[in-house]
């Protein structure tokens, strides 16, 4: 998400899957599109039928590869080398779309003199705060004791970067209103200056050559060049190329930087915001986009507003807004969204006088994401746990630790349509229920068609679904749980005089259903929730639900006259009668009347860039949004991602706020300077540019830099989270994980028609390795890491191929699907048992796509190699007080 967010302005897919049919070339990498998004893959097939070239780069030859025109193998975990070499090739061979790059990106901006690149510092960027020797955690850090994402208040934390040297060289530019000057980045539009971004980029990736790709990725040079030429040939005024990726790119300790590399490449190729171009981030679950929009993330408020943090100076609303608001670009409107959100939460109790009840919002004090919380739980630091539609005992990383952690809870509530491995954790192999004190509640939940509501898919599209049947027995919607909890908590806290309890009492909670039947069951009104998300024009004293709804986020104000539960969705229900998420009128272009996309029903983001600086389409063939001089507005089949009546020739107003500071040819309105960011000046924790670092578990030493891993990656160095050392002779194979079309998890394993299609866990092994290990197709095989071992049936296939790396290394990759667990008709060991906890520093995403392993013929002899370690308490000097991870730090290759 921040890979796209920092590059372009919003953390979401930049286009919609239907637009893929307009591509002349599609690069699918870090994704198994045909298997994991088969319905959306239709549009790739349509593109192919129109003559588009389909390219698939993947460690395995999959069902996607079978339909691709070009397939290239790659060592899992090395895509930054592959994409970086493409960047280098495009620059060196001058195949990038120069006019687009100069006008729409920060290619011409000068990077400050203090910047030190990985080429100068053995693989580090300037500003790295070293981890002192012997430092193994953060519990020794001061009275706050906690390491958060923003530690400026407490001095630079070890293993992080201070990003001051990653800034642009600034110059004073006269303000448009004549009142002095304002600082803007210095530029060289001729792109000659050695410190202008494109030259910094050139130097940074100079060693990323086709030969390096062969050495590091194991991808044949010929394949690389074939792909480079296909991309360049299809990224011009007349032709566009789209990228599609999924968790094969994100689930790495450098995951965000993978996305950055792809973003840089697409910027250079001039494909962003153009039909058949863009970056299609393929989000997985049906509502995962909704789950980050509203969100379930600990560090963000609805609409990607930052959660207040105890680690920053923001105890008051004013301080918080100062930190969160950008002076230029669309985020200058932040206060309107924050105050409207507070009005939605607290209604009349939120007034200008009391800072709109800001003090009642919780503040984060560290990294409370899933992995640290899991570790904290294992150490006894978490009392209670709501597990809703999630199954950590089966699909969690370091699954044994996840299961053991559940034994330390005082209570757990599992809400699901099935009794999952998580709900049944106390019955698992090796568990002794008499020793488990956890009080377990299992609440059966209604499944999709047994309740109404919205889902938000990878197109950022809200689609409402109706209730088709009554749920069985006592099953209720998930919304019922929160609605009822809210009502009962409010009642319990009503009499409390403790100031910290007041917030709950003050919450507006008017979701009572109008439907008698639903009301009798305790189910809330989904319609009211949606209307609150859309927003109201509030009047003091009048119940919010009686007020008029706002037409969209442009109507939101910072004076307390509007309330809005999620600004990016505003517009979905602009009046009492309308639910745009429910509309179903489709067409062959953008289908603006099918569902409601955020923001403001835009389907393709950054679409101003589909026209040149003068507002004319780059070509007739790739016409999308364009300026109509006579009408005085932007026209086209989609909602313009630009002020609809702002001329392409509008002058930038230095010193003005919001997007008035941008000219009429600055398409990336969310960005401070209106440009796509080739070089990101400080918003990411591991670098302004991507660099190749090996995964935590790797079969080789980093061939590119002395710095082996991402120095800012987060890990837990403890007995119950052991990981394989780099280049360990005991674990010489790369293990990669993925999912199958036929399964998700427990939901599908219980469906006989799906279970019979893929009934058992299998491991894909290349024929050469199979012979070496005396494993025949169909035999049982055991896969081992330092964390444990699991067994699977061997599927020996030439679709897996050993890779030839540099220095004559021959590396085998083993693939294993992630969909299995002990319950259901189709069962198997859980792959998560093999994978140690490690995360990227920006979003705490786990590394699941590339670990190392060994294999042996036969069934497993033990449940987990380290079972006794996991069930035993971790020594207290290895625990952190918060479950917090610690940074990897400088790593010059010593084991």
């Amino acid at each position, binding site marked *: 998400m921040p890979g796209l967010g920092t590059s372009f302005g919003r953390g979401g897919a930049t286009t919609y899957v239907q637009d893929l049919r307009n591509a002349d070339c599609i690069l699918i990498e870090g994704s198994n599109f045909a298997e994991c998004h088969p319905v959306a893959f239709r549009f790739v097939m349509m593109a192919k039928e129109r003559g588009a070239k389909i390219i698939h780069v993947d460690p395995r030859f999959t069902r996607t590869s079978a339909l691709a025109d070009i397939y290239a193998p790659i060592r899992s975990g090395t895509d930054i080398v592959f994409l970086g070499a493409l960047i280098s090739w495009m620059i060196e061979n001058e195949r990038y779309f120069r006019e687009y790059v100069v006008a729409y990106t920060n290619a011409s901006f000068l990077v400050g003199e203090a910047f030190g690149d990985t080429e100068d510092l053995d693989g580090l960027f300037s500003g790295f705060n070293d981890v002192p020797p012997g430092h193994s955690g953060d519990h020794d850090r001061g009275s706050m004791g906690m390491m958060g994402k923003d530690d400026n208040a407490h001095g630079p934390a070890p293993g992080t970067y201070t990003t001051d040297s990653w800034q642009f060289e600034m110059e004073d530019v006269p303000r448009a209103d004549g009142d002095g000057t304002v600082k803007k980045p210095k530029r060289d539009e001729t792109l000659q200056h050695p410190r202008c971004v494109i030259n910094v980029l050139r130097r940074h990736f100079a060693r990323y050559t086709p030969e390096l790709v062969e050495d590091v990725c194991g991808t044949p040079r010929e394949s690389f060049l074939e792909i480079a030429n296909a991309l360049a040939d299809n990224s011009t005024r007349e032709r566009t190329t789209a990228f599609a990726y999924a968790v094969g790119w994100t689930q790495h300790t450098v995951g965000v930087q993978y996305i950055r590399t792809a973003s840089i490449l697409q910027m250079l190729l001039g494909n962003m915001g153009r039909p058949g171009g863009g970056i299609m981030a393929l989000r997985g679950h049906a509502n995962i986009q909704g789950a980050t929009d509203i969100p379930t993330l600990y560090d963000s408020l609805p609409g990607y507003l930052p959660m207040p943090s105890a680690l920053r100076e923001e105890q008051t609303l004013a301080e918080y807004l100062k930190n969160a608001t950008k002076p230029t670009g669309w985020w200058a409107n932040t206060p309107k969204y924050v105050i409207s959100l507070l009005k939605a939460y607290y209604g009349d109790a939120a007034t200008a006088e009391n800072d709109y009840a800001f003090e009642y919002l919780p503040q984060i004090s560290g990294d409370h994401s899933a992995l640290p919380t899991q570790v904290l739980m294992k150490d006894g630091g978490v009392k209670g746990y709501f597990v809703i539609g999630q199954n950590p005992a089966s699909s969690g990383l370091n699954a044994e630790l996840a299961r053991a952690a559940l034994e330390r809870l005082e209570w757990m509530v599992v809400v699901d349509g099935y009794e999952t491995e998580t709900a049944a954790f106390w019955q698992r192999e090796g568990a002794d229920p008499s020793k488990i004190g956890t009080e377990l509640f299992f609440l059966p939940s209604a499944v999709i068609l047994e309740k109404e509501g919205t889902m938000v898919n990878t197109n950022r599209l809200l689609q409402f679904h109706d209730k088709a049947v009554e749920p069985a027995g006592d099953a209720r919607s998930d919304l019922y749980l929160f609605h009822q909890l809210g009502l009962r908590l409010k009642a319990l806290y009503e009499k409390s005089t403790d100031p910290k309890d007041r917030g709950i009492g003050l919450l507006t909670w008017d979701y009572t259903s109008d439907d008698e039947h639903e009301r009798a069951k305790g189910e809330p009104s989904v319609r009211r929730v949606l209307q609150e998300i859309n927003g109201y024009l509030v009047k003091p004293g009048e119940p919010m639900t009686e007020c008029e709804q706002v037409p969209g986020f442009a109507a939101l104000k910072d004076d307390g006259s509007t309330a809005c539960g999620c600004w990016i969705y505003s517009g979905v229900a602009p009046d009492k009668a309308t639910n745009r998420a429910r509309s179903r009128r489709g067409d062959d272009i953008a289908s603006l009347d099918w569902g409601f996309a955020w923001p403001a029903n835009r389907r393709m983001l950054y679409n101003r860039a589909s026209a040149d600086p003068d507002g004319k389409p780059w070509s007739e063939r790739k016409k999308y949004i364009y300026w109509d001089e006579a009408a005085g507005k932007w026209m086209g089949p989609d909602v313009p991602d630009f002020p609809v009546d702002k001329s392409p020739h509008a002058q930038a107003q230095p010193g003005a706020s919001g997007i008035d500071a941008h000219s009429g040819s600055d398409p990336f309105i969310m960005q401070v300077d209106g440009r796509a960011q080739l070089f990101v000046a400080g918003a990411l924790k591991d670098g302004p540019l991507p660099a190749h670092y090996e995964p935590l578990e790797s079969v080789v030493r980093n061939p590119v830099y002395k710095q082996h891993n991402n120095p800012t990656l987060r890990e837990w160095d403890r007995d119950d989270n052991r990981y394989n050392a780099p280049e360990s002779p005991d674990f010489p194979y790369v293990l990669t994980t993925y999912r199958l*079309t036929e399964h998700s998890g427990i939901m599908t394993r219980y469906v006989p028609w799906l279970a019979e299609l893929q009934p058992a866990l299998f491991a894909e092994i290349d024929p050469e390795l199979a012979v070496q290990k005396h494993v025949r*197709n169909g035999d049982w095989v055991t896969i081992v890491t330092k964390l444990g071992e699991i067994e699977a049936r061997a599927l020996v296939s*030439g679709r897996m191929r050993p890779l030839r790396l540099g220095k004559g290394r021959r590396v085998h990759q083993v693939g294993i699907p992630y969909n299995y667990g002990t319950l259901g008709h189709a069962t198997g060991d859980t792959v998560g048992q093999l994978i140690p906890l490690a995360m990227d520093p920006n979003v705490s995403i786990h590394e699941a796509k590339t670990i190392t392993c060994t294999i042996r013929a036969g069934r497993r002899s033990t449940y987990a190699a380290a079972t006794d370690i996991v069930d035993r308490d971790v020594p207290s000097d290895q625990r952190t007080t918060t479950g917090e991870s610690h940074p990897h730090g400088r790593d010059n290759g010593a084991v």
Partner: protein
Amino acid sequence: MSKGFFTDTTLCIGCKACEVACKQWNQLPADGYEFSGNSYDNTMALGATTWRHVAFIEQTAPPEAPPSLNKWLMMSDVCKHCTHAGCMEACPTGAIVRNEFDDVYIQPDVCNGCGYCVPSCPFGVVDLISHADYTEGRHFESDGRTHDDATQTTGGIAGKCTLCYDRQKVGFIPACAKACPTESIQFGDVAELHERAKKRVETLAERGVDSYLYGVDSGASTGNLNAFFLLTEAPGAYNLPERPVLPSTHQRAGYTSAALAAAALTAIGFAIFRRA
């Protein structure tokens, strides 16, 4: 007017939505949970309770060869609804008929489970439904709803694709065609499908892809297949017969020999016993 399927294997992504849609619509039981080791194909063959089956054929190149040379054929197999159907010829009760859509249909209330149709299908499509799967409810979870008499509901009788006779009767397209995300399975008027398919072969040829139609104007004794296929390798690669043979074709020779032998023996016997 003949209705049928054109299955274009170059559009198949191996998702198996067709298998699942068919089973769900017809409320067929799962066939068991055995790992086959046969690529991604665990259902293995068409049978009494599997009426769409996706075959996976790996044709991989050695590791040193250019990676794009790897091939993985995927094909959704189905009853061919032959214009000269072996199963229909063998059926002694008249259970197997050609319906008004020119598709081969087993009437479940007429079939007596004799099983003569089973060896008579040159493609190995039809089979007998085991009693146990239905009476013991093995691998079977239904929502309790029933369809009309076009659906298989009891064990012991023969089962195969009905070309969604019940859906066609109310103007719906077959479940598998409806579910297929890439339109690899196309349903329609057979003559029109032939036209479309022939154009498709040409289009693919222009792109350098060699293909042909299996079950169209081949001269095989099964006649044209109302469910025909576009393939890119020889039929044997897909486990299809190179040249399907209607079993009754052999019978002519058999009956003729038998008639000649009878005539010859009669003549000889007459000659020997005439003196007596």
